[in-house]
């Protein structure tokens, strides 16, 4: 099925470029490593063969939309990419008329690290076939159940079908019902335990800012960590500075996060960044009945108000 | 030239220094000159520099930034730096008062190649507040023990308005002297201005200094430098006889922190003074 989707993506891209309807197609190409795909920018018909679709297309391509110079852009968008597009439209960051959205119902992406940890020895080849993830090493060959190796954000995903598209590649998939979110378990702990978990979770951060850079919604001209007048945060490895980075980054996502998990996938230290965002998303939904990236016409919740908003906590 | 010694001391430690004097240079009050003296006698004894070299000035709690030395080694007394108020450190420098303690690292980098200037006519082309180390160079050449080592000295210096020229009192004394020619220009004249009007690269063509046995030293905003180089070449200056001093964001000042490189050279360590000929061999970055 995914191969057929890849063929269809190539076909659509070819047509768009041939008919000069777009200047560039942003999609995925085969990665240089097993378990990887890689973003690609296709500008000629001759290059369309590079486009692929598989269960390793883990990046959120919408992050390129706020940076690209080309005028008319086609983009391959799974559910979360499409939500980021909608969220960016709601924030007036990208004009709809310049976009051609090639929507792809998503089979959900494989967590490459989890797969690598499940076998002894290096994976030299990997491929998704039906519900299996087949991996191969120097002296092993295994067929793993794909659903057990999905990213956490994918397992919790309730929007696998693109929420907006001009072309849809293949038939819509059935949406999953929400599993128990990981933040609920933490809520049952004491504040002491929660602080221990949070401070431990972020302690290995090296401040490479891959989380910020991978995020489709992080497009500030100047991030608060880079400001110098005033300087909001220490530049070193002091635990409180690292904690502050993660708190402020996450909070800046409140009502804006599309739950794609791109931040966590990008993290070289494998920090669980998703749980805190999932908590914020859950609260925003509960307090303001809002989910980011569903409607481009609804103002994000922290940019608006209702006179009847909850305020019982105010003295 | 001062031979470069292998430094075995900790190159990151600033020398304590004291603010001796500060004064505002320009009408917009954005440029200030500070005079600093080294607090320890051993530092004073070891501090030898060539015009064109720079120091890192520390304002503790704010950080450190690089500034060309605006005084000449022939001038006794404190070191002089002229600072444009722009960022955190420069603003803090503007707030310094007499007696304040700061830190100084340097002299850093390589200054103007004085040995190659000897016996030559010297043409100084300058724009805005980049004039600082060129002022140091001219002051050094004008020193009575040095003047005979150089041929004719021509200074072409411009700023946007008359009030933005640095060292105006000194420039007036230069204009009176007969052992150098001074051409001052402004982009926009006002009622007080009796000098030239026009952009520096154009004035260079107008003045047309002779390139015979001459070296030119060009400092100023990147656009001025870019426009001046080809005009000097037209006047017959060889690229190896044209020099400039580059500015880059710097931190360590000793070629380690990485950011100020131009190709494989570090502006802080191998520069900031480069010949136009050398720059042409390096990758362009701007």
């Amino acid at each position, binding site marked *: 099925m995914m191969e057929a989707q890849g063929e269809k993506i190539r076909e659509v891209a070819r047509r768009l470029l041939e008919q000069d309807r777009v200047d560039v197609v942003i999609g995925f190409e085969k990665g240089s490593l097993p378990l990887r795909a890689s973003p690609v920018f296709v500008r000629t018909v001759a290059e369309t063969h590079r486009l692929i679709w598989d269960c390793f297309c883990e990046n959120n391509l919408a992050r390129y939309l706020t940076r690209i110079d080309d005028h008319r852009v086609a983009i391959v968008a799974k559910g979360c990419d499409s939500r980021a597009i909608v969220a960016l439209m709601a924030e007036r960051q990208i004009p709809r008329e310049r976009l051609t959205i090639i929507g792809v119902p998503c089979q959900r992406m494989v967590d490459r690290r989890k797969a690598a940890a499940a076998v002894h020895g290096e994976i030299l080849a990997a491929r998704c076939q039906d519900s299996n993830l087949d991996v191969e090493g120097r002296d092993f060959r295994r067929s793993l159940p794909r659903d057990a190796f999905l990213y956490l954000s994918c397992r919790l995903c309730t929007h696998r079908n693109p929420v907006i598209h001009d072309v849809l590649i293949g038939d819509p998939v059935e949406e999953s019902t929400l599993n128990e979110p990981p933040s609920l378990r933490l809520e049952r702990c004491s504040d002491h335990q929660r602080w221990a978990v949070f401070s431990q979770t972020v302690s290995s951060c090296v401040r490479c800012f891959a989380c910020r850079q991978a995020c489709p919604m992080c497009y500030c001209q100047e991030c608060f960590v880079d400001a110098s007048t005033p300087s909001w945060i220490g530049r070193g490895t002091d635990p409180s500075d690292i*904690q502050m980075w993660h708190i402020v980054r996450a909070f800046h996502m409140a009502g804006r996060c599309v739950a794609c998990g791109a931040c966590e996938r990008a993290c070289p230290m494998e920090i669980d960044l998703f749980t805190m965002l999932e908590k914020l998303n859950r609260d925003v939904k509960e307090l303001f009945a809002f989910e980011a990236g569903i409607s481009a016409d609804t103002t994000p919740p922290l940019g*608006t108000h209702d006179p009847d908003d909850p305020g019982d906590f105010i003295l | 030239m001062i031979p470069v010694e292998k430094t075995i001391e900790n190159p990151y430690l600033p020398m304590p220094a004291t603010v001796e004097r500060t004064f505002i240079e320009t009408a917009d009050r954005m440029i200030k000159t500070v005079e600093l003296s080294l607090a320890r006698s051993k530092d004073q004894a070891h501090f030898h520099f060539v015009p064109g070299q720079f120091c890192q000035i520390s304002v503790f709690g704010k950080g450190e930034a690089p500034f060309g030395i605006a005084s000449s080694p022939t001038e006794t007394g404190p070191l002089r730096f002229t600072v444009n108020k722009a960022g955190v450190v420069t603003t803090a420098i503007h707030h310094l008062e007499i007696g304040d303690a700061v830190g100084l690292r340097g002299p850093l980098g390589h200054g103007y190649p004085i040995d190659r200037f000897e016996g030559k006519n010297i043409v100084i082309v300058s724009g805005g507040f980049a004039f600082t180390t060129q002022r140091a160079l001219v002051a050094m050449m004008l020193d009575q023990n040095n003047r005979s080592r150089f041929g004719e000295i021509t200074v072409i210096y411009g700023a946007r308005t008359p009030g933005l020229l640095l060292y105006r009192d000194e420039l007036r004394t230069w204009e009176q002297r007969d052992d150098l020619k001074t051409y001052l220009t402004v982009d926009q004249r006002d009622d007080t201005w009796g000098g030239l009007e026009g952009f520096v690269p154009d004035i260079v063509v107008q003045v047309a200094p002779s390139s015979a046995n001459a070296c030119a030293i060009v400092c100023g905003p990147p656009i001025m430098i870019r426009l001046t180089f080809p005009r000097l070449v037209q006047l017959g200056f060889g690229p190896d006889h044209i020099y400039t001093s580059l500015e880059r964001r710097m931190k360590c000042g000793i070629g380690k922190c990485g950011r100020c490189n131009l190709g494989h050279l570090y502006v802080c360590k191998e520069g900031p003074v480069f010949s136009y000929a050398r720059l042409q061999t390096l990758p362009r970055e701007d």
Partner: protein
Amino acid sequence: MTPDWEPRIVAFLCNWCSYAGADLAGTSRIQYPPNIRVIRVPCSGRINPLFIIKALQMGADGVLVSGCHPGDCHYQTGNYLARRKAAVLRRFLEFLGIEMGRLHFSWVSAAEGTKFSQVVDEVTQAVKRLGPATRLVKARTWT
């Protein structure tokens, strides 16, 4: 905790209401605990949650944000926007393990000098019960 420990509480007060309310409390000689350090802001809507988090990092034992009553904002909606941010932020900080009692919000008008003193009293008591802040606080390693 030393027995004579007193909390330091940063209070972000809206210029148009709570700041004047504090002023009124002062001129009316109404007593309230001296634990707050006031930062005057043009509107509670101006308060970037970053300010609150930064105050906690710099060692504030508690933070109070006080603005105009609903409907009274000098800029029409600033306090409503602040209320939304506050609603999410307090839950989020609590989720991370920063004690709920460190962060407080209030509506205090320019006429409510007494209410201001009561709010400060209540907040100070709440923060006192928690003791000195330790989480997120940056240790000054250089002194």
